[in-house]
């Protein structure tokens, strides 16, 4: 296993009495691609900015290779940032933008030239040296911003919603490119986004945050398949969240049904939240063959699948299937035990839109 590079210990930031980041603990390893994911105002950007040195924590510690980083000014940290909307220097051409950090470090002219050229080649901007950044497209500016940061060979690259300003198609392409770059240069990426799909695509580890608190840390698979609470289940992908009761290990009840599941370790008769992903509900034509009987009330074509709402006696289910069942038809629904995710109820922090910064 790689060694720890950055450790956040009880890191806290308050703005005018509001707690933006609430005593978070996080360990980031070398070469890891970590994504801080959450709705706006969840504290993800503030956390990133504290690591970059642009915000002073009110409490807690930031350790970098075991050394305290709190009081080191931004310009002395071995960390580089790709900012929201890039923040390129518009009075300089592409070459000078990328060379900026190296010139400060008094790297020799020939070395600067070699490294800038190599970096521009890597981000596919060969021959753009003399162009001014204003004359570049969004995607190209984005690449300049990445090159400007990476050319300094930082131990960590911080990326603050770097693809937020790009259109969907370009965003998807850049996701793949960024991932390739991260693999090839072998440095740690800390990536902030509110786009759950982006997080799932790119990350080794996802840190889901809400209201300044870490909700769950895990691999994309963990986060998607085993959300620890209602917020995570709701934020990552679409889901049916049902209140139920854990009767005993591997037995969960809701709406008068008793189902097998793979979860254990709950108190007898503990109230729980149950997550069933829309794609995990199978439909059978004969209603009597299903565990749950329902009527299709809405059908929407989504390209890869149909999204249907099926109403049982007690609730509505969101179901995604490649086969279409017409509105009004009565069908049966089945769920595999492994596709039922049981979560502790706890006091749920629900998402609320707040102004970030």
């Amino acid at each position, binding site marked *: 296993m790689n060694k720890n590079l950055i450790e956040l210990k009880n890191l806290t930031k308050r703005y005018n009495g509001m707690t933006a980041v609430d005593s978070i603990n996080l360990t980031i390893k070398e070469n890891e691609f970590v994504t801080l994911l959450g709705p706006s105002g969840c504290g993800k950007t503030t956390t990133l900015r504290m690591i970059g040195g642009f915000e002073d924590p009110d409490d807690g510690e930031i350790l970098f290779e075991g050394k305290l980083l709190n009081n080191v000014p931004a310009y002395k940290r071995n960390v580089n940032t790709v900012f929201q909307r890039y923040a390129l*220097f518009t009075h300089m051409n592409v070459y000078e933008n990328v060379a900026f950090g190296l010139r400060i470090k008094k790297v020799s002219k020939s070395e600067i030239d070699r490294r800038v050229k190599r970096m521009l080649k890597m981000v596919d901007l060969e021959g753009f040296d003399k162009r001014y950044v204003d004359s570049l497209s969004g995607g190209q500016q984005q690449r300049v911003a990445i090159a400007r940061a990476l050319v300094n060979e930082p131990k960590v690259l911080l990326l603050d919603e770097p693809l937020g300003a790009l259109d969907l198609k370009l965003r998807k392409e850049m996701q793949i490119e960024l991932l390739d770059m991260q693999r090839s240069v072998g440095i740690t990426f800390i990536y902030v986004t509110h786009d759950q799909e982006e997080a799932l695509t790119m990350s080794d580890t996802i840190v889901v945050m809400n209201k300044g608190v870490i909700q769950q840390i895990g691999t994309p698979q963990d986060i998607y398949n085993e959300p620890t609470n209602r917020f995570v289940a709701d934020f990552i992908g679409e889901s049916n969240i049902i209140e139920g009761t854990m009767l005993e290990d591997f037995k969960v009840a809701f709406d008068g049904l008793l189902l097998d599941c793979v979860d254990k370790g709950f108190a007898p008769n503990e109230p729980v939240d149950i997550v069933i992903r829309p794609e995990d509900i199978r439909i059978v034509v004969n209603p009597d063959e299903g565990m749950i009987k329902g009527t299709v009330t809405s059908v929407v074509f989504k390209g890869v699948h149909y999204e249907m709402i099926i109403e049982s006696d007690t609730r509505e289910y969101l179901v995604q299937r490649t086969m279409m069942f017409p509105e009004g038809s009565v069908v049966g629904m089945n769920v595999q035990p492994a596709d039922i995710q049981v979560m502790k109820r706890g006091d749920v922090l629900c998402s609320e839109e707040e102004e970030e910064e």
Partner: protein
Amino acid sequence: MQKAIKRVYMSIIFLFLYAPIIVLIVFSFNKSKSRGQWGGFTLDWYIDLFRDRQIREALYFTILIAVLSTLISTIVGTIAALGINNMTKIGRTVVLNMNNLPVLNPDIVTGVALMTLFISIRMELGFLTMLIAHIVFSIPYVILAVLPKLRQLNKHTAEAALDLGATPAYAMRKVIIPEIMPGIVSGALIAFTLSIDDFVISFFTAGTSATNLSILIYSMAKRGVKPTINALSTLMFLTVLILMLIINKKNDKGEDIII
């Protein structure tokens, strides 16, 4: 038909606007001393201008004050704009309104007020008081020219420089100032133009020891208009015209419009 009316209307407006200046320029080349009739073309009045010690001195004062007040007001105004830009929204609104008031204030009020101030603190009216007055009335315009550039700047630009290893001073020198340079240059040009252009405030703050061109023209005109005044006014008009063209040329290039 409608088009023709529009054209005529426009022509009349411009005729009214520019007729006095055209007459002035034409008569600055008039051989006859009379203001009423044309006595043939001459450059004598222009040559006279540069022979006249009084005029040369006034020209020297005018340029010296314009250069110094431009320099100082540009520096002070730029620093002020940097500060205002970092204020909270409420603070910024308050300061900007306070900044705009002197711009709208009648020159004569500003002039009398400054004179009263200088006298009350027992400063002798002269070169220094006139310079201070010019700096004072130029600063708000510099702020108004620089601030939009700062507002346009990506709020993370300074952070990006620090992130790449620049000290705060280096980031200011190599990134922020160059990024807002077009605004600073516009501000300086406006300050320079205003300084050359000003009569009212100069008149009240100059005292007897310092005389700039506009004051000189005024006092010469009281003794009867000599053709040299026409020549001098023509030169001043051309100077301001050229400066305005430069400013507008800059604006055409997609930079901020100030005037």
